[in-house]
């Protein structure tokens, strides 16, 4: 099996139940809230908005703390593992961003069908869906890279260096969230024009990914998990 396929196989039993729980919880809570009157915010954005980015952040950490050793001790090179991590990260970020947008629209339509959608509820046009996707994807990707960076800082170097790397490693997540993060009302931030905000966020994430790649390329495989 290729390293990429193996990585998806390893996380499948972690991801599917997580996704299932989130969807069920959302359905229950939304039903309860909507039964008491119209909803003027998106519960889906509230739950998923945080869940996806923090989940990817934790996975970024776990890939270094647990999977790196698991893969290399079974004959996979670090570069093969990095390629797998890259493919996994991109796929997950894009999938989660799509899930946010599609779920938001589904919630919107469902609330409308039950007459529980309030006037201030953030409805989505097609253009709105694309814009929302374009705001969520950099954030999920940024959190994923930040997770990995912070983990490799502590794995490869002594604790105090790890702390320094941690501060720097948080930048991709912080930049993306600060410049592009949307809130539960679906409000897009307007601190900077979208193009500029996107460019800065992507640059921070790309530099972070490059640093991660560099640090992992010849990292010694320790006996205990980082």
């Amino acid at each position, binding site marked *: 099996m290729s*390293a990429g396929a193996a990585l998806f196989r390893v996380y499948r039993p972690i991801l599917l139940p997580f996704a299932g729980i989130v969807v069920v919880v959302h359905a229950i809570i939304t039903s309860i809230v909507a039964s008491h009157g119209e909803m003027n915010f998106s519960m889906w954005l509230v739950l998923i908005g945080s869940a996806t980015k923090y989940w990817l952040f934790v996975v970024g950490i776990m890939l270094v703390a647990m999977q790196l050793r698991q893969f*290399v001790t079974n*004959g996979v090179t670090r*570069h093969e593992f990095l390629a797998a991590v890259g493919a996994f990260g991109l796929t997950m970020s894009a999938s989660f961003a799509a899930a946010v947008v599609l779920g938001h629209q589904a919630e919107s339509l469902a609330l409308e069908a039950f007459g529980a959608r309030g006037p201030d509820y953030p409805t989505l046009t097609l253009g709105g869906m694309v814009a929302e996707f374009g705001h969520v994807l950099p954030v999920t990707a940024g959190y994923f890279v930040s997770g990995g960076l912070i983990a490799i800082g502590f794995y490869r170097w002594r604790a105090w260096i790890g702390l320094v790397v941690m501060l720097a490693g948080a930048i991709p997540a912080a930049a993306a969230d600060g410049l592009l993060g949307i809130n539960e009302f679906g409000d897009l931030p307007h601190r900077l024009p979208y193009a500029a905000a996107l460019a800065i966020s992507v640059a921070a994430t790309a530099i972070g990914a490059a640093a991660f790649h560099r640090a992992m390329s010849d990292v010694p495989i320790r006996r205990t998990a980082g």
Partner: protein
Amino acid sequence: MIELRGVTVRYGTTVAVDDITLDLPTGKIYGLLGRNGSGKTSLLSALASYRRPASGVVRVDGADAFENAAVMRNTCFIRDTLDANDSDKVRQLMCFAGWMRPGWDADYAAKLLDLFEINPAKRASALSRGQKSAVGVVLGLASRAPLTILDETYLGMDAVARAAFYRELLDDYLAHPRTIILSTHLIEEVADLFERVIIIDRGRLLLHEETDELRGRGVTVTGAAAAVDTFVAGRTVLGEQSLGGVRAVTLDWRPSAEDVTRGEAAGLTFGPVGIQDLFIHLTSPAQRLEATR
């Protein structure tokens, strides 16, 4: 052929492996001996690409081994502490190895787990020390990797389990010849399985010889102190003991039949030196002496 050329491994300022050059023809069972802290594990880590040497190179069949997919896929390095996440079940460890290892034999793995009485449903964190060692052994043997390295893997196992391991190791090596490197402290138990012995001391290569060459390489000469001193003059002394007027000197020397006759005529007795004793003498902290008396 596995080649190590000038391999040096450093941890910060500490040099664990100091400029080691070694040629290991494939297909043999090697014993790697060395005291704790001698650099054995660091050397094996470099060999398995778990750690990049500070300088020097490891080549397998002519190709640089570090980060080489073909080499790493065919190298299985089992360490003394089991490389598994606490939450992994034994069954999952076997399953993952099956996905990634080209030569993995799942039936053989199952048979070995049975032999060592390991419950596949147990999590790695719930295994005893001996069970962890056994799981490591199963992962190493069932991988059938062309280069299989077991680093003191089996030290946590009890004598019965170890005997089973040695038996399985030899039987599987006979059926599926490959390069096997065993690092161990239990020299006497397992020396019969080694075709060659490598001894590392303080990061340096001390010797690399056929096992039979080491058997009978040393001799202990015992007798009246004066007679012993005369007899051993000029020879390399590995160790000596004196009690009253009696002295026993261990030499790095293979006496001929005439030497023995001459010595016995002088009232001396000769004792053989096994590999473990030879190892102890070669790596003990006392300085190696030239007998100058």
